[in-house]
């Protein structure tokens, strides 16, 4: 069993990322989409959440949402993988189910 977690809210605005990290089992995948992509940036007051969890969880971020928000890939936390919509579909298929932290 493996869950793909999606996070679509900024970690500064909502607790979705915190809840996800608290409730995802080791080995799960987490995809940042929409306003969630801000959670993948390094050097912020919230970067520690992903940095602290990336040993246990695999983090991905949706490229089209990153670009829309003007975030260069070199601003991402090391180890976060950029995917496009095809990659989102692939993650959906490669995991058993999807948990959306709305």
């Amino acid at each position: 069993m493996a869950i793909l977690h999606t996070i679509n809210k900024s970690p500064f605005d909502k607790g979705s990322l915190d809840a996800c990290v608290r409730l995802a089992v080791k080995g799960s995948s987490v995809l940042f989409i929409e306003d969630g992509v801000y959670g993948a940036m390094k050097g912020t007051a919230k970067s520690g959440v992903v940095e602290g969890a990336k040993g246990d969880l695999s983090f991905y971020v949706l490229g089209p949402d990153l670009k829309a928000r003007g975030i260069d890939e070199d601003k991402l936390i090391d180890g976060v993988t950029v995917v496009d919509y095809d990659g989102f579909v692939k993650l959906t298929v490669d995991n058993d189910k999807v948990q959306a932290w709305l």
Partner: protein
Amino acid sequence: MSDIKKFMYVNRKAPYGTIYAWESLEVVLIGAAFEQDVSLAFIDDGVYQLVKGQNTKELGIKNFSPTYTALGDYDIKKIYVEKESLEARGLTVEDLMPLKWEDENEDYAEKDSIHVVPAKELAGILDDSDVLLNF
């Protein structure tokens, strides 16, 4: 895969401020007719949905909280409340509505439907589900 899937309803929002809690409950009730394996999880502000003593008269919005106490009649008896979410909000299980189900194998003994579980355990329960519905 067997014909029965494990449905998990994940409730993370407070009641009344938005309609998600109520409309989630409507899915649960309809879903009960499909004879799947059903669980509900209450996480973050979702735990507020189960607080007892709700009285919406002055708001003018329907008080849908009694519906939770009827879930046992729909054979829904696996209701997980995240311990960390309760504690952060200064709540204990005593603050929640007592949700019960009757065990027909034990002469219809009333049993608690609510299980307060730590995040680590709830994570495993989520992981063990087949379909996650998010509200």
